[in-house]
């Protein structure tokens, strides 16, 4: 309709303008790609150099020759132990966190009881508590119950600190599920608990998978609790392995770059597989703002 009203010259002009705008946008987008990728490029290229080749060859040269021994040294230095411990801690924490936050979100989203609003407000308020404020008491608590320097020590804090945000997002998510789903299940003779496990939980899958991605990333990379609660190398998780290797090979920069590359690769691979889930669950959390 508008196009008919516009004369030809105007139409052509606006088309050229949009062409120019898109060209500029794509140039800027490519600049952003360069900014994003250059550090990764630096990391990966240097991980294939010999220790002293790095300074001699400079950053912009390809490794010559390609040197793979950094990786074998890192693997021989116990890299997979750190890796496995991180997998265990993140796996257990994530499963517990998802179950417990879904439990908590269910009554908050779908039942009316007296304290609902109050409990919800309290849990949401916990989102802004910085974990560093709790560090000394949790250190104290961990030593008192004898969990200090073991992987068990990390699970409680990891789950607890991921809960407020997760409950917040899942509550918003579960509110979008139509009431009829439960009503029809009730007619079929389901009680509340069956309702939760067979109706609500399966329908919340996309919310749960987004939470798994975000919390998985932050637990995998968590540093402060791990650094405070673990001390011996045979108990440390992956983020601490970086410091451990740096301490042992501080002059061998390519070696450290190999450790860094190995530690991000699993995250990047998982992300590329699951990247379509990245936005969906976040949308539910973003609605309410």
């Amino acid at each position, binding site marked *: 309709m508008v196009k008919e009203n516009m004369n030809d010259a105007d139409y052509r002009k606006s088309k050229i303008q949009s062409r120019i705008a898109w060209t500029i946008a794509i140039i800027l987008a490519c600049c952003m790609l360069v900014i994003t990728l250059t550090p990764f490029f630096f990391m990966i290229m240097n991980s294939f150099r010999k220790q002293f080749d790095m300074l001699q060859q400079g950053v912009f040269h390809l490794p010559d020759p390609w040197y793979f021994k950094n990786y074998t040294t890192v693997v021989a230095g116990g890299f997979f132990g750190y890796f496995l411990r991180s997998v265990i801690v993140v796996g257990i924490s994530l499963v517990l966190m998802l179950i417990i936050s879904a439990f*908590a979100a269910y009554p908050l989203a779908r039942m009316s009881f007296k304290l609902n609003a109050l409990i919800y407000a309290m849990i949401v308020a916990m989102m802004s508590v910085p974990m560093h404020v709790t560090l000394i008491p949790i250190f104290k608590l961990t030593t008192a119950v004898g969990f200090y320097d073991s992987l068990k020590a990390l699970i409680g804090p990891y789950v607890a600190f991921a809960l407020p945000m997760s409950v917040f997002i899942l509550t918003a998510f579960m509110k979008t599920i139509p009431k009829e789903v439960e009503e029809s299940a009730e007619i079929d003779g389901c009680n509340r608990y069956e309702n939760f496990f067979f109706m609500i939980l399966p329908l919340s899958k996309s919310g749960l998978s987004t939470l798994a991605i975000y919390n998985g990333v932050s637990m995998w990379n968590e540093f402060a609790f791990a650094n405070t609660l673990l001390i011996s190398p045979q108990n440390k998780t992956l983020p601490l392995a970086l410091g451990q290797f740096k301490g042992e090979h501080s002059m061998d920069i390519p070696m450290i770059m190999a450790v860094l590359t190995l*530690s991000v690769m699993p995250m990047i691979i998982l992300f590329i597989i699951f990247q379509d889930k990245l936005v969906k669950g976040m949308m539910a959390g973003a609605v309410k703002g």
Partner: protein
Amino acid sequence: MKNDNKVGLAQARAKSIAVAATVFLLPALLLITIFIIYPVIDTFVISGYKWNGISSDRIFAGMENWNALIHDEMFWKSFRHNLIVMVFSIVLQIPIGMLLATFLDAGGKKFNIFKIIWFLPYLMSSVAIAFLFNYALATNGGLISSFASLIQGKKATIDLLGTAPNALYTVIGVMAWQFTPFYMVYFIAGYGNIDTSIYEAAVIDGATRWQYIKHIAIPLLGPIFKTACTMSLIGSLKYFDMIWNMTQGGPAGSTELMATYMYKLSFQQFNMGYGSTVAAGMFLLITAIALIFNKAFKVKEDY
């Protein structure tokens, strides 16, 4: 009789809801109490003592620690650094994240590869980023210095992390590299949430995709924008991991933040009493700033 029955039924129903709600909420509330609420209270308790964190005897010191905190220049300097980080985080990460999301939303599926690559920095741990940039920004063999040498044709050394005013801004830049992708996804979700019928209506009225984004979509993102700012604000006031591994607050305290200062006091100098006071002070400041920010924004929304 019949009425009684009804009341009884309603009561029984309310009771069974209360039981179910308690069962479902109990694990979450228990964990939050043990690992968040109790520790916060305990931090305030310990802040009244002189304690090295190991020995069983701790000496009650009254308000002595708090008095010291108020006159502690290093603490207020750290707080100022936190505020600088906060302002630059909000000014850099959120607008860039929003621009990237806008570009992806306008471009649609064919730009998916941009989204995947732009998100990568967020997958890296703060520790890994700290080590990587320590070397990538080094004067010898680092990216920026090498690039400057390439342009000038002679050896250039640009010291980004070793000198006082540069270091803080360098760290801010690295933080932007790390966290912008998070806000990008957040805004993509925001765009995705806008009802498609609004877009369809705009197209029928002859709007281009760009006009729709500029005049309809961005104004609708208001509340999301506010949440993003709150997250960035709290995030930068409690920032720790990367700075700790990159500069340890140095050189000469120029990148010291409240959290790194607290960690140094507590777990390097084992001054846990005063460390707790710093942590508690940090908690009060963050809560106050978050509340003020929320209130200020609410007033604006009402107009």
